[in-house]
C-alpha cells in the first residue's frame, strides 16, 4: 500500500506535519483513543486500508464458489463483484483466486493482458499499414510479385476450369454411350411393335366398319349427354358453395366487428381506470411497501429511479415523458444548443480570491498552534470581505441588521438543547459574523501600540505587586530596567513595523505575549 510515512514533497499544505499523522490530533479532539491511533500509525499503514487478517473461512467459501462449474463460465468481473458484495476484502479475494486453479485472478492483471492484446492488435495493424505503404514506393519488384501472385491466382483458376471441363466431357461421353446402348434398341423395338399393330388393325377394320360406326356414334352421343349433365351438376354445386362461402364470410366479418367494438370499450375502461388510479395515488403518497424492483426507466436502466421498489410514485408528467420517449417521439421544447467552448484554450480569469478556511480546518489549525498563520488568514478574510462587492457581513455587524440568512429562530435553541450542543454560542448565533466560528477562541489582533507611554503606564503597576512579594531589592531593580529596555524595543517595533528579536523570542504586538515576556522576566 502507499507509503504514508513518506508523503511526496509536492504536498504544498500549510500543515507542517504529515496528513496521515494528523489523524492523531483530530482524533483527540473528538474524544477518540489517541493511543490506538498512534499504534495504527506506527504500523505504517493508512487508516483507509484493510488491516484485518485474511479470514480462512471466507476464503474457503469463495474457493467453493469459484470452483462451481456454472461460476467458472461467468466473467471474472462478475465473480469479483459478487465476492466484494459478500464482504470479502481484496486480499481474501485474491487468495481465493490463487487457490482455484486456471482462473485469471485479478482485474488488474486482466486489464494489462487486455492491454497487451490491444497492443498486439495495434502493432499488427501498424505492421499491415506499414507493409502497404512501402508497396507503391517500391514499384517494379512488388508489381512483379503482385502479378505473379495474380498469375498464380489465375493458374489456380485455370486448373479448376480444366477439371470442370473434363468432368463435363466425361459425363457427356458417358451419357452418349448410355443412350446409344440402351435407348436406341428400345426405340427400334417399339417402332416394330407399332408397325405390326397397324397391320392387324387394318385387317380388323375392313370387316367391322359400318355397324361399328353407328354404334360408336350413338355411344358418343350418350357419353356427351352424360358429360353435359355432369358438367351442369358440377357448376350448380359450385354456385351453391360460393354462396355459402359468402354467407360464412359475412358472418365472420360481423363477428370481427363485434370484437373490435369490445376491445375499444375495454381500452376506454382501462384509461378511465388509470386516470382514477393516478388520482388515488397522488392522494396516497406515503404507502409503504417492500416489493422488489423492476427497471422500466427510459434512460437506460442506470438511473437510480429505475432500481427503486416499483411503488415509488413518479410524477404523472414523468410517466408521460418516459412513455413518449419509449415511443420514439421527441418531447417538445428541446433546443439545439451548441455548448462547446468557443475557445478551448481560454485562460481563467484572474486574480482569484484567496481560499477561505473551512470550519473544520480551523479546529485542526488551532490545535496545531499555528496561531500566527491563522491570524494571517483571518486578516486575509477580513480584507476579502471588504473587497467583495457582495454582502460584507462583518460590516453589517455594526449596523444592527443581519442578512436574513444568518438569523436563527428562537426555536433553534430548544431544538439544540435536546441535542448535545456542541458549542456554547447558540444564543449569540446570529450576531457575530466573524469568519472564524465561535468554537475556537482566536486571540484577537491587538492594535498596534500607538502610544507607547500609555502602554508602559498601563503595564507598570502590575510588576509592582509581585515586586512587593519578593524581598530582594536586586530583583526589584531588574524588571524595571528590563521593562524600560523592552519599552524602547516596543517603540522601535511599532515605529518600524518590522520584526525584531526580543530576547530571542518571536516578536509580536500581542499584549498577552508581552505580558508573558514580562512574567518570564520577573521569574528571572
Amino acid at each position, binding site marked *: *500500500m*502507499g507509503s504514508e510515512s513518506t508523503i511526496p514533497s509536492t504536498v504544498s*499544505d500549510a500543515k507542517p506535519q504529515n*496528513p*496521515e499523522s*494528523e*489523524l492523531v490530533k*483530530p482524533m483527540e*479532539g*473528538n474524544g477518540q483513543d489517541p493511543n490506538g491511533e498512534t499504534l495504527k500509525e506506527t504500523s505504517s499503514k*493508512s*487508516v*483507509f486500508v484493510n488491516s484485518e487478517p485474511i479470514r480462512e473461512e471466507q476464503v474457503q467459501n469463495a474457493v467453493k464458489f469459484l470452483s462451481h462449474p456454472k461460476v467458472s463460465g461467468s466473467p471474472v468481473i*462478475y465473480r*469479483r*463483484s459478487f465476492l*466484494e*458484495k459478500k464482504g470479502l476484502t*481484496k486480499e481474501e479475494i485474491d487468495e481465493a483466486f490463487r487457490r482455484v486453479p486456471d482462473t485469471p485472478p485479478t482485474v488488474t492483471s486482466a486489464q494489462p493482458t487486455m492491454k497487451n492484446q490491444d497492443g498486439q492488435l495495434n502493432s499488427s495493424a501498424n505492421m499491415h499499414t506499414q507493409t502497404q505503404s512501402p508497396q507503391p514506393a517500391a514499384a517494379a519488384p512488388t508489381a512483379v510479385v503482385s502479378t505473379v501472385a495474380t498469375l498464380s491466382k489465375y493458374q489456380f483458376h485455370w486448373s479448376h476450369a480444366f477439371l470442370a471441363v473434363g468432368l463435363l466431357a466425361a459425363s457427356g461421353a458417358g451419357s452418349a454411350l448410355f443412350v446409344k446402348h440402351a435407348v436406341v434398341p428400345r426405340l427400334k423395338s417399339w417402332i416394330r411393335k407399332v408397325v405390326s399393330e397397324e397391320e392387324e388393325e387394318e385387317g380388323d377394320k375392313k370387316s367391322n366398319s359400318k355397324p361399328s360406326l353407328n354404334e360408336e356414334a350413338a355411344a358418343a352421343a350418350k357419353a356427351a349427354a352424360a358429360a353435359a349433365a355432369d358438367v351442369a351438376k358440377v357448376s350448380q354445386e359450385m354456385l351453391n358453395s360460393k354462396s355459402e362461402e359468402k354467407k360464412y364470410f359475412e358472418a365472420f366479418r360481423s363477428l370481427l366487428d363485434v370484437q373490435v367494438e369490445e376491445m375499444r370499450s375495454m381500452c376506454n375502461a382501462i384509461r378511465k381506470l388509470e386516470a382514477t388510479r393516478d388520482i388515488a395515488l397522488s392522494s396516497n403518497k406515503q404507502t409503504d411497501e417492500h416489493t422488489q424492483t423492476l427497471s422500466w*426507466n427510459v434512460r437506460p436502466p*442506470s438511473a*437510480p429511479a429505475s*432500481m*427503486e*421498489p416499483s411503488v415509488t410514485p413518479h*410524477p404523472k408528467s*414523468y410517466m408521460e*415523458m418516459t412513455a413518449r*420517449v419509449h415511443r420514439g417521439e*421527441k*418531447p417538445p421544447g*428541446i433546443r439545439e*444548443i*451548441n*455548448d*462547446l*467552448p*468557443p475557445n478551448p484554450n*481560454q485562460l*481563467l*480569469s484572474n486574480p482569484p480570491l484567496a*481560499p*477561505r478556511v*473551512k*470550519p*473544520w480546518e480551523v479546529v485542526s489549525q488551532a490545535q496545531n498552534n499555528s496561531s500566527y498563520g491563522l491570524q494571517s488568514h483571518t486578516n486575509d478574510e477580513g480584507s476579502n470581505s471588504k473587497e467583495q462587492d*457582495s454582502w460584507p457581513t462583518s460590516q453589517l455587524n455594526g449596523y444592527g441588521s*443581519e442578512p*436574513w*440568512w*444568518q*438569523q436563527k*429562530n428562537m426555536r*433553534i435553541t430548544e431544538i439544540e438543547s*435536546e*441535542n*448535545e450542543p*456542541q458549542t456554547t454560542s447558540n444564543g449569540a*448565533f446570529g450576531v457575530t459574523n466573524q469568519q472564524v*466560528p465561535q468554537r475556537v477562541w482566536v486571540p484577537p489582533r491587538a492594535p498596534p501600540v500607538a502610544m507607547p507611554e500609555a502602554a508602559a503606564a498601563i503595564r507598570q503597576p502590575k510588576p509592582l505587586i509581585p515586586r512587593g512579594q519578593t524581598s530582594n531589592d536586586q530583583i526589584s531593580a531588574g524588571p524595571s530596567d528590563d521593562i524600560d529596555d523592552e519599552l524602547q524595543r516596543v517603540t522601535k517595533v511599532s515605529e518600524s513595523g518590522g520584526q525584531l528579536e526580543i530576547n530571542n523570542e518571536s516578536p509580536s504586538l500581542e499584549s498577552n505575549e508581552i505580558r508573558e515576556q514580562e512574567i518570564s522576566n520577573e521569574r528571572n
Partner: protein
Amino acid sequence: MPIFKTPFNGYAVKFSPFYENRLAVATAQNFGILGNGRVHVLDLTPTPTPTAPISEVCAFDTADAVYDCTWSEDNDNLLVTAIGDGSVKLWDLALPPTSNPIRSLHEHSREVHSVDWNPVRKDSFLTSSWDDTIKLWTVDRPASVRTFKEHAYCVYSSVWNPRHGDVFASASGDCTVRIWDVRDPASTMIIPAHDFEILSCDWNKYDDCIIATASVDKSIKVWDVRNFRIPITVLNGHNYAVRRVKFSPHRESLIVSCSYDMTVCLWDYRVEDALVGRYDHHTEFAVGVDMSVLVEGLFASTGWDELVYVWQHGNDPRAP
C-alpha cells in the same frame, strides 16, 4: 425564506465557498430523461425582510441535462458541471456568457452523475459517471489525470476526504462503497454497505474516518472505515430512496439528507432518536440539498418540482 423557480427540474444545489450568498443550481429539462440542461448562479438578496426573491446572476444552457455542479476552491468564479452527455464543462463567471464554457472535457462514455472539488489541494476535481469509472482532473490539463475503474455498475457519487487530500470515497450502483487513495493504483477499501444501490456518500468533516452512505433501501448508514463490517448506526425514517446525504460543515454529528419521499431530513447520528428535523416543502422528488460552509445553519434544496428553497435552520422554508 426565498424561493426560486427554475424552468427545468432541479438536480443539485451547491453553495459557493467564497460568497456567503451565492449558490449554483443544476437543472435538467424533462426530468433529465431527454432534453437540455441549465445551470443557474443565484445570489441571495440581502434585505432583512426578503420580499424580493433570489436573484439570478447568470445562467448557462447546455445541450444535455446538468446532473451536478460544484464550485472551485481556489477560483471564486469557476464552476464545474456534470453533463448527461458524458462531458464535464467548466464555466467562468467573470467572462461574458459568449466566452463560456471555457472547457468541455469529454472522456466519459456515459452520463456524468457527480462532480466534487478537492477541498484540501484545491487544484483537482473528481467526476463519477454511469460508465462505472471515476476520473481525476486538474483545470490546467485538457485530459484526465487518472481513471479509477473498479466498480461494476454506475458510480453515483465520489467525495473527497475533507482532511486528506489524496483520499476519496465513491458510491456505486453495485452496492459497494470504495475508499481510494490517488497514490495507489487500486481502491484501498471496499465496503459492501447496502443490499441495494448506493446513491450518495459523504465524509464527516470533523472525524475523517466516518462516512455516511445513502441508498435505495431508504436508509442511511454511518460507517467507521476502521471497522467497516458493521455500521455505527442505521438511520431509518425516509419512505423512499434517499437521494443525497451531507454532513454538516459546522456541527460534527449533523447529517442532512433528501429523498424521493419529497422531504429533507436532519439527523444526529450520535443520539438515540436520530431524526431531529424534517422539512417537507417539496412537492416532487427532493433531489439536491446542500449546507453552506460559510454560514452556519443555512440550507438549500431543490427538486423535480422546479423550485429552489434556501432557508435557515429552524425556519419554515416556505415561509415568506
